[in-house]
């Protein structure tokens, strides 16, 4: 209520456009506070680690930080649009009132402040008529200048963050996104000039707008209606954003400190079809299955951090990532590691690497089932490399709490290029399982979903050979998409009365298919087979 009185003078004056501008401004305060928080990934890791008491499902929400960041960004865009449009009306009407192109009440209110000793209400003090008047306000007032500048920054950030630009020209996205620094600084000082003004509390006691608006000409002459006094509202935005700005600053400092820690590349392996594997060691690095790290190579680019899923198991004494060479940065890394040279490279020639992480919720759930179905589509198979290796290590070391007895692994791939390094891993596991006389532990099915006639001919001719023609594995590659209904029924009949975990890393459409299959193939009662679907957020 107090606010309403304080602002009543001004709000009667400019009808409802001011309220229409103040409301999105309040929302903007809140949203700009929120937008910095999901990108403080080290803070999120800390929260994830320290909230070990909460269930995995709650902790997993922290993995959707980027989705949240984008939603808040859209909200900021929407509110900025409403705020700007409302203020356009405000400025136009305020300037009109100043040049006597409005109702008498507004004109009278605008005139207050001209005589010495009076405080003004209308921030447009110069009598310049529209359209120049509006432009004059925009370029001479701090709120005008900062408003235009930060809205421009926001538009540039948004246009360079579209999916096309982000996926194909990451550097444009990353460097333009740093305009947020200007955005936040501008936002903090946007209201510093206090041009949104209202009647002061003491003036409201002496001059009541509802009673005095009838006799404007008498103001100052009669006792009931002295000349009202106004003051500007103090800026509020900085109170909202200073906390997250500080947290983000800490985040960048932590990233910088981590990047200074020594990471040694112990081995670089080039795989066919433009994939390289980097095996590294870092003191104090602890990882879990399914996590990812951010990697920076100052030789290639001093500012860019790129995420990669870890493909090594926690039981190994190094950590590794597999990198596909697709863009500028990866090409640069390829050359820096000497992968384009044929001869053996000395260890000291390898570039310095900075590693931040590991991040992401670990996929420990895999180990709590007796039977699991792991489904990886395309590049989504990468985290399963880590999982499979870890499962294998646990199995070999006869870890007591390993309930896992059987793994069904499905790999859906569009072309054969991606097979190579992962096929090597499967081959290794295949051989090891045969040695351990337990070839039934892991059964894998590789589906080649994009094939043409010439390939089909090739497969048909080589069908009877012992090893698969594409992967060299004993289990043959299958063509087309899997018939999930059959698969689920077969597995369900082979493992009655068990809880089977289904883990997917792949596209949404497949997630829906598998979810439906899980539900329809599970028995309704507590006994019987149950398929439990887990979508991994890698």
């Amino acid at each position, binding site marked *: 209520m107090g606010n309403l009185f304080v602002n009543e003078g001004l709000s009667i004056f400019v009808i409802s456009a001011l309220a229409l501008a103040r409301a999105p401004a309040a929302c903007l305060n809140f949203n700009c506070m929120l937008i910095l928080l999901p990108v403080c990934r080290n803070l999120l890791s800390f929260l994830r680690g320290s909230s070990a008491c909460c269930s995995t499902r709650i902790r997993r929400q922290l993995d959707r930080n980027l989705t949240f960041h984008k939603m808040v960004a859209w909200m900021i865009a929407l509110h900025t649009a409403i705020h*700007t449009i409302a203020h*356009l009306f405000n400025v136009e009407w305020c300037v009109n009132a100043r040049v006597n192109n409005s109702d008498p009440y507004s004109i009278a209110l605008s005139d207050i402040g001209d005589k010495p000793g009076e405080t003004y209400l209308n921030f447009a003090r110069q009598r310049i008529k529209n*359209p120049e008047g509006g432009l004059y306000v925009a370029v001479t007032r701090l709120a005008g200048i900062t408003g235009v500048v930060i809205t421009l920054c926001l538009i540039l950030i*948004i246009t360079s963050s579209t999916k096309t630009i982000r996926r*194909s020209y990451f550097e444009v996205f990353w460097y333009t996104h740093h305009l947020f620094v200007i955005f936040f600084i501008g936002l903090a000082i946007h209201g510093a000039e206090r041009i949104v003004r209202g009647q002061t509390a003491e003036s409201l006691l002496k001059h009541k707008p509802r009673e005095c608006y009838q006799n404007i000409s008498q103001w100052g002459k009669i006792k009931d209606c002295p000349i009202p006094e106004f003051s500007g509202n103090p800026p509020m935005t900085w109170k909202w954003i200073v906390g997250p700005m500080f947290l983000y600053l800490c985040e960048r400092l932590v990233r910088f400190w981590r990047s200074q820690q020594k990471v040694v590349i112990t081995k670089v392996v080039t795989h066919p079809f433009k994939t390289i594997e980097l095996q590294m060691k870092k003191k104090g690095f602890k990882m879990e299955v399914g996590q990812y790290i951010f990697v920076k190579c100052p030789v290639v680019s001093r500012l860019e951090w790129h995420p990669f899923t870890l493909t090594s198991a926690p039981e190994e004494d190094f950590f590794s990532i597999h990198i596909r060479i697709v863009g*500028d940065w990866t090409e640069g890394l390829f050359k820096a590691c000497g992968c384009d040279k044929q001869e053996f490279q000395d260890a000291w020639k390898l570039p310095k690497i900075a590693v931040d992480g590991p991040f992401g919720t670990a996929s420990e759930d895999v180990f709590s089932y007796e039977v699991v179905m792991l489904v990886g589509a395309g590049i989504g198979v990468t985290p399963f490399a880590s999982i499979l290796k870890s499962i294998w290590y646990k199995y070999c070391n006869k870890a007591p709490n390993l309930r896992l007895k059987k793994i069904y692994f499905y790999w859906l791939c569009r072309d054969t290029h991606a097979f190579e390094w992962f096929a090597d891993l499967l081959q290794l596991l295949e051989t090891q399982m045969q040695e351990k006389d337990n070839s039934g532990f892991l059964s894998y099915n590789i589906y080649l979903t994009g094939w043409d006639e010439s390939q089909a001919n090739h497969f048909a001719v080589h069908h009877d050979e012992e090893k698969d023609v594409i992967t060299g594995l004993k289990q043959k590659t299958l063509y087309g998409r899997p018939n999930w209904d059959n698969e689920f029924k077969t597995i369900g009949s082979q493992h009655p009365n068990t809880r089977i975990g289904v883990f997917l890393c792949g596209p949404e459409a497949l997630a829906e298919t598998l979810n439906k299959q899980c539900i329809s193939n599970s028995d309704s009662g507590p006994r019987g087979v149950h398929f439990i679907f887990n979508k991994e957020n890698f």
Partner: protein
Amino acid sequence: MGQIEWAMWANEQALASGLILITGGIVATAGQFAQWYLGAYSMYPPAAHPSFRAAGVLICLLEYPRGKRSKGSTMERCGQKYLTRAVKVFGPLTSNYYIRAFLHLGLSVPAGFLLATILGTACLAIASSIYLLAAIHGEQWTPIETKPKERPQVGGTIKQPPSNPPPRPPAEARKKPSEEEVAGVPVGGPQENPMPVTDEVV
């Protein structure tokens, strides 16, 4: 930054600018904002504002069809193929990015004189400069055309009927055609006898 196709970003920026220009024009008209008066009139239903909206619509129509990337596949915008045909008609006027840069710069200038549209001016000016950068790098707008799926011609590679259709004699007989074989009788094998052997057929 070597592989950047600046035109892709310029396209997004210009499309956004077009929308902002349209919005600014609508706001200015809806609020009956004053415009630069040409002549004696002032404060009358502004004639300039519809032209801002028209400019905005023109820019949106021009920028909606995404150009083909020189490397990799391009995601088309939904429903862009009709506009692609329209834009293609203008030939070098639309495929040359220098012309687009100057067009956007030209369209952005009048909008700078009205408060409601100065944001459109700034955004268009930036889009224009990115297009200039793209043009300097030699980029061009090429329409995305869907290639008709080539159905493999059944029998297209078959020029002559098969030369040895079934029923066929076994492989050994086929390798050394001799007079006995013409009758279709299988011969023992490609074996060289040290002494001449005659086959006595009784």
